[in-house]
């Protein structure tokens, strides 16, 4: 009987469920050993065909650059030549118009 009581008193620690407020609020697991279960990272290795990468083609590269230059040319973008010619034609016609009016008077 005494032995049973002795064991029951020891095993009563399993029946209670108190917890320290610090562990409870932080959610820490006191018996956590997950760090040993983490898989180790493999060492860094060069890719298998790293040196066999294709070299860039120069011709196509130049063509692309020239194409970009053409499209980026400011004169082409603004159509300066065309607008100038239009403006000159317009100014001529306006002068003629004024002169005609003066002659008529």
């Amino acid at each position: 009987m005494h032995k049973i009581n002795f064991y029951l008193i020891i095993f009563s620690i399993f029946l209670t469920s108190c917890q320290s407020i610090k562990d409870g609020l932080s959610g820490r697991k006191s018996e956590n050993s997950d760090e040993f279960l983490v898989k180790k990272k493999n060492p860094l290795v060069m890719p298998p065909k790293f040196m066999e990468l294709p070299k860039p083609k120069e011709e196509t590269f130049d063509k692309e650059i020239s194409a970009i230059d053409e499209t980026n040319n400011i004169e082409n973008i603004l159509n300066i030549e065309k607008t100038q010619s239009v403006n000159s034609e317009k100014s001529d016609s306006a002068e003629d118009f004024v002169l005609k009016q003066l002659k008529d008077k």
Partner: protein
Amino acid sequence: MNKKIFLIKFLLIFLIFLTDQISKYYIINVFKSQNEEIYLTSFLNFQLIWNEGIAFGLLSFENDLYYNSITFLIVVVILILLFLIRNNDQSSYFYSMIIGGALGNLTDRIRYSSVPDFIDFHIYNFHWFVFNIADIFITLGVICLIVAEIFFNKNKINA
């Protein structure tokens, strides 16, 4: 076993279990709407904490196998206690107190997979372990058992 004595013991277990469950149900409902601790007095607060382990936050594993093993052990201890309360000595009443509390904690272990603790007793910044009503009765039962064992034996030796 006398029916009257059996009824008294059963009522004792049932009352402790009921008190514990009602208190836990009430506290869980209160803490659903708020998360801050409830200030009662300068030395007593209510703070809901979930304990997945046993006493003093020990043996709280993430592994389900360990958790189920501990639960199984608790069930075995309760069954031994139930077997022992058949005797008509004073210790059987203390066993009943322990069973009542243990059943309360076991119910929560099965229902919530952890036991809610909420009574935070502290003196200034020194906080004692947060416990619940079931823990009070288990501890009281164990203390009474120890005291009765010591004094009972002394009387027996003197006689």
